[in-house]
Each structure stands twice: as structure tokens, then as C-alpha cells.
């Protein structure tokens, strides 16, 4: 009977090893799930930003400079969509679309329009 089992030192060392490893695993899982959620938010924010740029691209004529902030929902999550159309030269306007969720996630896209390409065709 005395020839079976582990020594106390073995058990302590093995336990310490497992605790450390499980700690690392827990941190990794936490990082993974948090990162996945951030990526999902960025993906949705990119989708909203592309849609917002597309909705301005088809406007005819290109609107006068403006700035709007609105909230939009995608997959049950809320996003802030900030759209700014500003002069960026004599005959150009710069569209900036920034979609954010909280402080951590933000996606920004830019598109420039040449006004005279459209206006002169009238």
C-alpha cells in the first residue's frame, strides 16, 4: 500500500502548474471573447459606414455642406453615426463618416466629390 500514490511535493508542484496554466487559459479566453465582441462591433460599424457613404454617393446633386449625428441599430446594438460633408477645395467636397460604439470602437471612412462633374452636366 505504501508503494502506491504521489509524494506531497509532486502534488504541490502539479497543482501549482495547473493553477498557473488554468489562469493563463482564463485570461486568454477573456481576451478572446472581448476581442471577438470588439471585432463584431467593428464589422457592424464598417457596414453602417459603407451604407452611409453609399447613401450620400447617390444623392443628386451633391448636397450643401452639413453635419449630422444620429444613432443606428444593427443586430440589436446601437451605434453613433456622425456624417460630415465639408468644402475641401474650390470644387470639391469631403465626406467623412465616423461610426462608433462606446469609446472603444470607431470606424472612419472618407470620400471626396468633385462638384463640377455633376453640376456642369445640367
Amino acid at each position, binding site marked *: 500500500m*505504501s*508503494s*502506491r*500514490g*504521489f*509524494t*506531497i511535493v*509532486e*502534488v504541490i*508542484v*502539479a*497543482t501549482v*502548474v*495547473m493553477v*498557473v*496554466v*488554468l489562469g*493563463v*487559459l482564463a485570461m*486568454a*479566453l477573456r*481576451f*478572446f471573447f472581448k*476581442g*471577438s465582441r470588439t*471585432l463584431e462591433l*467593428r*464589422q457592424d460599424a*464598417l457596414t453602417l*459606414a*459603407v451604407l452611409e*457613404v453609399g*447613401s450620400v454617393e*447617390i*444623392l*443628386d*446633386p451633391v448636397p450643401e455642406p452639413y453635419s449630422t449625428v444620429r444613432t443606428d441599430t444593427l443586430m440589436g446594438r446601437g451605434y453613433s453615426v456622425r456624417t460630415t460633408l465639408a468644402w475641401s477645395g474650390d*470644387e*470639391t467636397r469631403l465626406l467623412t463618416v465616423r461610426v462608433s460604439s462606446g469609446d472603444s470602437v470607431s*470606424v*472612419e*471612412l*472618407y*470620400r*471626396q*466629390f*468633385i462638384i*463640377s*462633374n*455633376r453640376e*456642369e*452636366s*445640367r
Partner: protein
Amino acid sequence: MNGSAPGNRGAAILIAVAAALVVMLAVGVLFALMDRMITGQLQRESEAQIRLSEASALDAMIRIVETGGPPEPGTAHRFNLGGVVTTLTAGVLERTDLRRGGFTTGGDATPLVVPSGRFLFAVTPENGVTVGVFSGSTTERLGSYRLGRTPLLTLASPIRWQGGDAVLLALDNGAGQEIFVVSPSGVQHSLTTVIDGLCRSSVITSGGAEGSELLAVSNGGNRGFVVNLRSGLSTELISPPGTCPAITPSGEVFGRAAAAGSLTLAPPVTDVFFEDVNRDGRLDMVWAGPRTLYALTSRGLLSGSPSPGASLLAWGMIEGSLGLGARWSMPGGQTLWTRLTLDGFSPYEPVGALTIPWTGRFFGRGTVVAGTVPGGVMLSSVSGSYSQQILEGNHFVWGDADGGDVDVFAPLSGGIEAVFNPLAGDGFSQHFDMQSSLNALNTRSSHRLLIFDDFPRRRVFSERERPVKQ
């Protein structure tokens, strides 16, 4: 406890280390997966910005070519937007034919085609009425809107709405008409009204200032309604025989209030358009029907018919040569041309392109004329020394869909074939190699600019040729 067998000594540590290795391996896989997901997301964001920056660079390049002409081969232009550096390198300049294009509407139905300014609207009867919107410059589909009902489409016509190009649809719901104004960004306005006699052959005109847009709809003859598109209020109008009530682009109403119950017999009208036919700097109105042609100019209402009983075969304007003219079939079977002169319409001996058997409305400017002939669309020099059939078929729609001159469209099953600006004639094409870079991402593609010297301005269109693999 202290007397373990030599074979078991260290086994607990071994098992723990083995388990630890498996767990660390899993953690490593998780990190690699996460890294890959982050990289993929960043690449998608970069690609989205690159697409937008390249579209902006092409717009800017088009502007440069429009104002300064084609650049020398080998010239590179650099653009910077959103951190993306886009370089466009010009290739050689080559002659090119007319600009052609195709629009895919899908399904088997032949769409109703409505060119409107810079866009082409294709209306198909799919689960009610579906309106597809296409860019006339790139032929890309910009959107598709389904009017989620199952009414009958009665009419479709181009309209200017809030300073932009749109299409007006009149749908019959049994009790009256539902009118929709659809722009590239969706349904802008709808109203329900009752217009007696509205049918597919009704002639529609629209105009007016923003906020008080008016629509005039004829019953095919000289009676019709003018409808305020904002309020839905309609008034019945009557106009001289051979014409129909109409709205000028500036919103002036042609016609007077009709007396209740009055009946008139008037020849039908199939086409109405606005042009400066007597070159006095003011828009005149022209009405055409199977047996009549009338022009309202500063000299009054002028008839283009050479004699009673003559049938109108073709009509149109050739700026700079014929002016407003018409081809008639006389009761005896012979054909005759009349044209508008300072003294009104007078007979005209056809020469050159006017000996071609045009049917319906034709268009012309300077030395070129385009129009429909039996079996297709013909483009000809006014002198007749050069002519070319540019489209085949029997049904064509004329109108502007790329913000330039008149274009011609052939609706087909599941799509539309187009020839753009045939009056502008041949042009030039120039290849451009486009390279873009953002961080470590580099893309290459090839584009072609089509350049037409369409007096008084140069018109430039872009076509993506192919992506180039890195």
C-alpha cells in the same frame, strides 16, 4: 505516502505538464485565430477606404481631363485621401467608337425604360412594380425599390424632384391612381388622385418650382388634367386641337380650364417636347401626333402639316441645318418633307440623310442625325455620305441618362442595351494604370477613360477594365 514505487515517481508532475502543454497549445491556437480575425477585419476596413479613395481619385482625374484634356502618356497623378495614396498613370490615347453599355435588370420581363438626367430607371412587373436605378455614367445598379402592392402600372415618366433626377410612376389601384416619385435614394413622394382617361398613351409633362411641382396628363387628345403633386389637387384643362395640355420645365401651364361636360373632337397627340425651334433664345413647344405637327413659337401656333389627310411619319430637330422638320406620307402615297422657316412651315426637298426612311422622332445636331428606321437605330451624317446602324430592333427609348446629350435604349428580356450620346460621334479612349496603397496593402487595377469632345464641353466617362493581381 513517502514510499511510492519507482515507476510512479514524478507521474503527477508529468501529467500536469502534459495537461499544461495541451492547454498552452489551445491558448496558442486561440491567439493565432484572434490575430487572423483582427488582420482580416483591418484588411476589410482598408479595402473599403481604398475603394472610396480610388473612386474619388477617378472623379478627380475625370475633372482634370475634362478641363485640361488627356494627359501625355506616362504622366502620373497622385491623390491622397484617408491615408490611401492612389497613383494614376496615363497610357496611350486611342480612337474609340460610340459609347455603348448594357444594363442587367434580371428575370425574363422586358423592362419599361425611363432615362432621367444622370440615371436610368428600369420598371419591371415583379411582385407588384419594381424600380431598378442605374447610373448612366457607369451602368452600375445603384438600387432597387419594390412598390409592395400589385397594382397596374399605367405610366412612367422622367421628372425633376427637389433638384434631382427621378421617375414618376402612375399606378392604377382600381379606385384611382397612386402616383409615386422615385429617386435613386428611394421613394420620395406618393399621393392618391383620380385622373379620368389616364392610359398608357397619355402624354405627360412636368415642371415647376421645388415644392410646387406640377404634372400635366393628357387623355391622348386635347383634354387633360394638371395635378399639383404636393396637394394632389387636379384641374381639367383643354388646349387647341392637335395639341394637349402641358407644363413647361419652368412650370408654365399650357391650356385653359375646360368647361364641364364640353366635348371636342381633336386629333390624338403622341409626343410633346420643348426646344428652341426658331432660334430666338426661348424654349418653344412642339406636339406631334399621327396626323399633326404643331409648334408654339413667339409667332403663335404653327401647323407643320402640308395638307389635310397627310400622315406624320417622322419629326425632329437638326440644329444647325434642317431645324424643325417633318416627314409626311401624302394621301397619294408619296412622301413629303416640311420644315419650319421664318414664315412658318414650308415644303422642303430632302437631301442627304433626309432621304433615309426615318420613323418617329429623330435627333440631330451640326452634321449628325440619329433616329429610328425600320429594324433599328441609324446614325448618319447630314450629308448622307456616312451612315451606320447602331442598334437593332423595333422598340427604342430616347432620352438622357448620363447627364449629356440624348441616348438611345433598346429594352430586352432581362436587360437593356444602350448607345450613349450618338450625336457626339466617335471619341478617344485612354488607359490608366491605378495603384493604391494603405499601410501594407497594395492594389492595382486598370481603367479606361472615354473622352468625347461634345461641344461646348468635353465629356469623360470611366470604365474599370480589370483588377490586377499583386
